[in-house]
């Protein structure tokens, strides 16, 4: 009894982690598979083929690059716009401020199917050709919401006395922003940008409605799933996972080492 009581939380935690990581482990494992038929669903034979010939399947790398490019551009534009909106909402009192605060949540709250289809209707009505630009517009729209929310939280959590102190110490409005406000809000902006990129890279529903003939990575996988997913997709997906992991670990390591060097200083 005592043994159970002592270890039950740990046991449940392990089970939850297993539950979370099994799908990822399967994806990585099957990137080393050499499937028998078209479908990479049954383990056949270990091989590095998918990794050595990662672009071996037509279109897969093209779609991957398209998604990376799309994600980067949308994130940069949305982060700049969203940061400015957040500053306006926190720092200034203007007409329509509270309704803006509410409306900014809409893209986050609305179901993606609704968003995707209504955007499509809009573009069709405007006779706007579907493609990179329409997908980008759609992505920027929903990333902005996340950026605004993250940067706003950061700004609101900032002690207003810090900016007063900067003004008191001979920093004009521009210098106050550059040397105090911006560095303090930056972690929020970076966090929002990372999240925005992963949302854009990951998005299928909204992109699918508005892509026209453009093939993003999720759209490619969806198409491939109809005909049989090549292990290259697993390899690319593993690559994404590993780079995300590397970023997180790198950041942890960096802050840990900095804290240690400061403590011994």
């Amino acid at each position, binding site marked *: 009894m005592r043994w159970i009581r002592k270890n039950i939380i740990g046991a449940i935690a392990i089970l939850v982690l297993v539950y979370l990581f099994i799908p990822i482990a399967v994806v990585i494992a099957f990137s080393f598979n050499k499937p028998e038929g078209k479908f990479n669903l049954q383990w056949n034979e270990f091989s590095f083929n998918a990794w050595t010939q990662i672009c071996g399947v037509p279109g897969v790398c093209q779609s991957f690059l398209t998604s990376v490019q799309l994600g980067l551009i949308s994130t940069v534009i949305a982060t700049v716009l969203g940061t400015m909106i957040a500053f306006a909402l926190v720092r200034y009192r203007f007409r329509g401020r509270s309704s803006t605060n509410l409306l900014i949540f809409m893209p986050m709250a609305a179901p993606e199917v609704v968003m995707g289809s209504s955007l499509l209707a809009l573009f069709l009505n405007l006779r706007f050709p579907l493609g990179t630009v329409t997908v980008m517009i759609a992505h920027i729209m929903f990333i902005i919401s996340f950026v605004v929310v993250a940067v706003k939280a950061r700004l609101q959590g900032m*002690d207003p*006395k*810090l900016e*007063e*102190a*900067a*003004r*008191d*110490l*001979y*920093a*004009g409005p521009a*210098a*106050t922003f550059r*040397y*105090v406000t911006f*560095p*303090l809000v930056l972690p929020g902006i970076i966090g929002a940008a990372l999240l925005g990129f992963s949302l854009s890279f990951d998005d299928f529903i909204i992109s699918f409605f508005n892509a026209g003939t453009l093939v993003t990575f999720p759209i490619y996988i969806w198409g491939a799933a109809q005909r049989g997913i090549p292990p290259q997709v697993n390899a690319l997906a593993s690559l994404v996972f590993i780079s995300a992991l590397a970023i997180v670990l790198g950041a942890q390591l960096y802050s840990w080492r900095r804290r240690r060097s*400061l*403590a011994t*200083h």
Partner: protein
Amino acid sequence: MTNEGPRAGTSRRVEDLRLAGLTKVFGDQRAVDELSITIAAGSFFALLGASGCGKTTTLRMIAGLEEPTSGQVFIGDKDITELRAFQRPVNTVFQSYALFPHLDIFENVAFGLRRRGIKHVDAAVGQMLELVELSSLARRKPSQLSGGQQQRVAVARALINEPDVLLLDEPLGALDLKLRRQMQIELKRIQSEVGTTFVHVTHDQEEAMTMADTVAVMHAGRIEQLGHPADVYETPRTVFVANFLGQSNLIVGEKIQGGESVEVNAHGVRFTMPGSRNFAPGSQLVVGVRPEKMIVLDLADAGRIPSGQNTLHGTVTDVSYTGVSTQYLVLTAWGQQVIAFEQNSIVGDRCAVGDPVVLHWSPQHTFGLDPAGGLSSGIDPSVLALESDAEA
């Protein structure tokens, strides 16, 4: 050797700070009401008052962080009212210190110099950190410092700019009692070393009295009384000051003789005070005396009282021994509680509860005040609530 940075010990030209009719209105409330004072160059000036009395607003107007509704701020002959905060030769030590969390101690201290385009800051920053005894922590982040250390960084960050006036907004409020005492001495030392005018805002009367050479007691946007701490304490001019700065026994009475020596009849007892210590305009007045000025004697020893002293008969209702002194509560014939402190330097028995006693004190320690504002003005509301509970 660079020429930048403060040179400890050297005298530099500092100018007076003058407020002329300074007023700030928030909505329909006059937070600061026609404030006109001159703060002498190089002095340590304390603005003392309860929260909401307008002292912090006054400070912020001097710093340029708040715009006055009307009135002006001068440094020497120069009107700085229209200057923005970053253009004023004035620096602030904030209550929460407001150290920049993303910069280390060195960069925090160097901030003001860098913003003014000074390139070589090492010598000045080093000197400043030495003044506040933090040289070894230059590369730490503010969050790694203790409260007292952060406080010293805040002082260094402001003083390095050699301001004409250093503003301190309750700088010791966040520290515990022991550290506060230590920092009081420290700040006093720094002030005498750099010779800058310090304007210190606080609600702690003891802090104001120990540190400042001029104290201004502020109440409802106005200055009630201004002067040397000892003068303000010994000779309060209003009921507010008598109650807010220390404690006072206040007895309502009627003036029966004016002139050089004022005689008062209060509940049938006669009190005397010098005419120069009576500040009541009319014949109604409040007789005041500080608790430590009263000497408590057993009724049997009444013969030992020298002639000319003010005396008051009563019964002891409470005795509390506080170490340094003993605190007596004495009930007068008309049912008023009077408080008296006795130094624990006497040999022999103290008076006990129920003893009939005579309190006596010198007319020179007596003051007369205008009763118009009521007798409880200046007493902490929570203390008042306690007292009414005790009576019920």
